[in-house]
């Protein structure tokens, strides 16, 4: 029996690895609350609710959250040994199967937590932004499950890239509002959702989808997602008799990353690798304001975006760059302030994997392990292929989501490239 079995919910939420940022939302020089004054009272109200319900389990909030995560979400998710990857890399590779969580991605952990919290706070309406649609679908599911009206803002370009997810949100009863400003991706959707919130703040809760935004969102989302590392750590000890040497997760805004790292941060022997989207190149086009990647941890500079000070893709004036990645879920110019801090501290190793390597990773996991990963997740497997020789003998990789939503994009992207390990898809792409 593992030691964690005797701990209460409350004790778990008090793990030292999760104390960072709880008091004031600061992670070293990062974090904070850079929002319009009109939103400050709502954020203070949320910080108060976070402390009461999440940290102190008032009214049994955390117990209900955990129960719903189990019954509705299907937790715990397995930690599975990847036999063929282990053989290929001559190291033990374990997969944390968040793709098996209800909805097919880790996103439900946070969405369910926040929608439930909104209910405890007496809010009557949910709004959320979404990039790839994973957070939007998770929020729509949670809102339907908990009987809350829900509006999702989504960039027009993302809507076109992710149609099945748009249908899923609508099937669950949510309203989907297209955002047409800018390039029509995640950062515009976040700005638009903040505008809605500025008008409706008194009865509406904004479910932010990642560990970004003003305090208390980064700590709160981390705490809801930390169930990934809580389980993975325990499962690794149970299955292998010890801690992993390395933990690998892809990073966009950083919610699956921080969720996977949270309880390992204090285990100094465990190396933490945050794999960002290297896109087509790490070079930026300052003239056009375009960074053809989403590697804000790896290449970004400090700045203030969407309520927090963090690492950003920006030009020398401080205008935010248009990021790019084949995976729309990683396509964001910022990153969670806690990750920015952990990178500066040398605790988290930021790495970038380009579109080509991610696509190869997508095919490798699909055809060797029988798991079709999300294109976001595929970056972690691209990293494994490129850097396995630098890793220790026991590696945990978070499979943050399944790839069903990405099939069209994956087929199209594969068709445009010479991907060594891809099957012949020409019969599906009009090439026959």
């Amino acid at each position: 029996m593992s030691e964690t079995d005797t701990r209460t919910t409350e004790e778990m939420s008090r793990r030292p690895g999760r104390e960072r940022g709880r008091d004031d939302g600061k992670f070293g020089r990062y974090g904070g609350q850079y929002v319009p004054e009109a939103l400050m009272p709502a954020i203070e109200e949320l910080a108060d609710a976070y402390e009461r319900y999440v940290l102190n389990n008032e009214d049994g909030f955390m117990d209900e959250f955990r129960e719903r995560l189990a019954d509705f979400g299907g937790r715990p998710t397995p930690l599975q040994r990847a036999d063929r990857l282990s053989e290929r890399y001559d190291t033990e590779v374990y997969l944390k199967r968040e793709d098996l969580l209800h909805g097919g991605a880790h996103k439900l952990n946070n969405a369910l937590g926040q929608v439930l919290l909104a209910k405890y706070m007496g809010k009557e309406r949910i709004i959320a932004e979404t990039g790839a649609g994973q957070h939007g679908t998770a929020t729509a599911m949670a809102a339907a499950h908990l009987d809350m009206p829900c509006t999702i803002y989504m960039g027009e370009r993302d809507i076109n890239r992710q149609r099945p997810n748009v249908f899923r949100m609508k099937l669950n009863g949510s309203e989907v509002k297209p955002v047409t400003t800018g390039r029509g991706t995640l950062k515009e959707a976040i700005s638009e959702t903040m505008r809605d919130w500025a008008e409706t703040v008194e009865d509406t809760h904004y479910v932010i989808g990642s560990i970004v935004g003003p305090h208390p969102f980064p700590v709160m989302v981390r705490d809801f997602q930390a169930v990934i590392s809580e389980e993975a750590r325990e499962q690794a000890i149970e299955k292998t008799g010890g801690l992993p040497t390395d933990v690998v997760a892809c990073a966009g805004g950083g919610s699956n990353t921080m969720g996977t790292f949270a309880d390992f941060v204090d285990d100094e022997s465990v190396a933490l690798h945050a794999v960002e989207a290297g896109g087509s190149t790490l070079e930026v086009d300052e003239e056009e304001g375009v960074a053809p990647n989403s590697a804000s941890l790896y290449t970004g500079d400090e700045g203030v975006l969407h309520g927090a000070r963090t690492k950003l893709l920006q030009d020398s004036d401080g205008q935010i760059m248009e990021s790019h990645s084949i995976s729309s879920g990683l396509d964001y110019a910022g990153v969670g302030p806690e990750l920015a801090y952990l990178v500066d501290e040398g605790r988290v190793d930021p790495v970038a994997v380009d579109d080509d390597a991610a696509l190869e990773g997508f095919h490798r996991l699909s055809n060797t392990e029988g798991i079709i990963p999300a294109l976001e997740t595929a970056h972690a497997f691209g990293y494994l292929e490129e850097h396995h020789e630098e890793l220790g003998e026991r590696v945990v990789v978070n499979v943050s989501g399944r790839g069903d939503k990405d099939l069209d994009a994956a087929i199209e992207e594969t068709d445009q490239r010479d991907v060594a390990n891809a099957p012949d898809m020409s019969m599906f792409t009009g090439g026959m």
Partner: protein
Amino acid sequence: MANSDAVAAAFANGPAYVPYLVVGDPDYESSKAYVEALDRGGADVIELGLPFSEPIAEGSTIQEALVRSLDAGMTPDRFFAFAEELDVDAALVCMTYYNLIYQYGEGEGPRPFVERAAATGIQGLVVPDLPGEEAGPLREACDEFGLDLVFIVAPTTRADRLDRLMERVSGYVYVQARLGTTGARDDVSDQTTESLDRLREYDVPKAVGFGISTGEQAEHIVAGGADGIIVGSALVDIVAEGVAEDLSTAAVADRLEALSRELKEGAERGHRSRTEPVESA
């Protein structure tokens, strides 16, 4: 209470008319003619918008203006050149988002931006994504260079926050008339009167903004106790119409000047109508 004498003077003689335009919308030269038209129309303080790519506090009208300006090549340095070249009597205040202030120039923090702003004749700053809690370094730089730092008070701002904000504010306080983002509205909310009541005890000029578009509204708001009115979207709408209808710069400038006169006169009527002496707190 005020670092800048010019801003203090703007509120000293009757109600202040405080218009806002996005600098560089739709292009540098037209924009200069538009700002100067506001001045001729009676502006006491002019808020000059420096566009940021992620303007989370703006509604669609101003957001589109910011995009037009950015597309036409506006940068912080061009903005400062613009402010330097302006020939206006009104005091100038820069409204922008914190990341642009933070990134400007060599070295850390907001000081280089404030130093440069002061050198170009800008007298104050409004930063909609910078609440009092995060404003320490900017406040310090503003004090050093004699700029005012204007804070926004929202209908949702609670009493304890109000006290803290009022300790940090200088020049004037921007009273947000209603919840939501910027944008012209037909009605001016009851929240305005409520907000002004709450602010009565603080000895700083109160300028009301968000949604004012007519002289009648200006009159109503000043009669209700405001020391000034801030008008943005209604003016930006005129610039947008000029773009849509392909009007000459002079025609757009004339419209801006005319609306400015209407607003300023409305504010003055409102001021005269305050026949009763202000109740002492």
